[in-house]
């Protein structure tokens, strides 16, 4: 197949995913953490779509060509986007509730729960 090879998509996906993970770990603002989680999910979507584009052209030995494989990957992306939207709706609600309680949403200040 002409054009961008599969490995390029996967590498970009892995890069985006790593940026997301690092962001979640080092940032202190829950809204930024949320954006990083969105980045992770978008990396997942990219990976799914890349596989969905390339799988129908491949065959796994001993089996019929993967002609139908594109469908499940593309459906998966639709569901991931819907779920991510639901997650953000709830998440921003919780962040709002916290902001009303303490006028501050820094993660480091959240240390009431400990052993």
């Amino acid at each position, binding site marked *: 197949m002409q054009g961008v090879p599969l490995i390029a998509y996967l590498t970009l996906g892995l890069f985006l995913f790593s940026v997301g993970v690092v962001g979640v770990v080092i940032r202190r603002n829950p809204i930024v953490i*949320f954006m990083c989680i969105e980045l992770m*999910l978008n990396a997942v979507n990219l990976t799914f779509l890349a596989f969905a584009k390339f799988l129908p052209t491949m065959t*796994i030995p001993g*089996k019929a060509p993967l002609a139908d494989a594109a469908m499940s*990957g593309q459906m998966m992306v639709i569901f991931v986007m819907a*779920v991510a939207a639901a997650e953000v709706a709830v998440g921003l609600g919780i962040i709002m509730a916290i902001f009303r309680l303490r006028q501050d949403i820094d993660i480091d200040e959240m240390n*009431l*729960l400990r*052993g």
Partner: protein
Amino acid sequence: MYKPVILPIDWSMIAPVVLVAMVGIIALCIEMARPKKNNNLIVGFTLAGLAVAAIAILVQFDMDSYRIGETLSGMVTRDRFSLTMQLLVVISAFLSVLFSEGYLREKRIPFGEFYPILCWSAVGAMVMVATQNLLMIFLGLEVLSISLYVLAGMSRSENKSEESALKYLLLGAFASGFLLYGIAFLYGGSGSIHLDTIRQSWAVGNSGSHMLLLFGLGLVLIGLGFKSSLVPFHMWTPDVYQGAPTNVTAFMAAGSKIGAIAALWRVLDAMGMMQQYWMPAMFWIAILTMTVGNLIALGQKDVKRVLGYSSIAHAGYILVGILAHVREPMKIGSDTVSYYLLSYALMTIGAFAVITLSARAGKEGTKFGDVQGLWHRAPLAAGSLIVFMASLIGIPPTSGFIGKLLIFKDAMAADLAPLAFVLAVNSIISVYYYLGILRSMFVVDEEGEYVRNSAMNNGLKSACVICMVGIFGAAIFFSPLMQLFGTR
């Protein structure tokens, strides 16, 4: 041109799920009308609806009229394992609803929305246990988790509750990111998101697809490890359990753990062929989960935190059962895991139900000192707590003992003797902190501030009695139960 094959659909397979979802929707409509300005009608309706759903699941255990198989293009699976897990989820939701109303009133958060959201959370768990499709596992997990994020932050004026909700949400979403990324690679390695097809494609695959599948499996296991709180992905568990309202914690500990463990069971079962790669890792994770959970619990001062760490340890025990099954899939069935989860659900929900007594007039204290002298205020609750703790420790004749014995036997049969040994040692360590909880309940010197005026209500009484009867019943009727849960 893509031409999907549409097979006839067996609607009875998704009837219980639809039923519980409808119960939630109708309960929300009742809540909007709010007859008599209280929640009694909602509670009654939810309980009745969950009971009907439990019956709808129970009739399907009759394998002659309800065949084992899949429907809706492989999205929904029905076998003994999925039916059992759905039944356990419904039972957990039922028990959590049963004692919630009194606690929510005491805590001054009498929101009727609790009941519908709990139902939908149960729907999520029921979806994810009854499928072999990774898309459905993901969707069920998210429906379950998103509902629980909302419930954990339900006590809006309480800093702790909001903090636990945010921690749960951020770590939960982080974990689903890993889970999804893993699913993407499993899909890339096999061309399918159905676990059966993935299992087959490992057998025929080449080294390239094997690498994709292994990478994907690792990420999926990280995601599911977060959700079922295996060490080293357990950090959120005690915090969230401590901060969330106690009735929510009860369902979280039982319902969401059942969902996550069932999904883990399905995934590991399907990946049995590549166990030479993941078995060593899971072996150490099981050892760590049992040991770390128990050791950290020893130093805790808060009853809900102790129970949180204890739930981590129990996840480790169940993981031993799963690993034993994967090593010897022909000899060891899913019935051990099912039985252990049943007894675990009963004893944890019972224990959390008793802890709800420490809420009074909008405040709540769950430190060991706060619950001192509960024995005087509520002898029934404190008495039943003895049974729950005995079962959590694993003292005969409770179901907790039989569950541990079964897992021990399975581990020995599957040549996992080190795990069986660690399990036994950990059961002994755990005696210390469970007895610590009991000691503070029965100490008479000084009554804790919050339990001084606590009052039993009928819902709580019945929840305690049902859990107690269930624990002994499951121990006595152990062999018919095992037959119901599946064949060995």
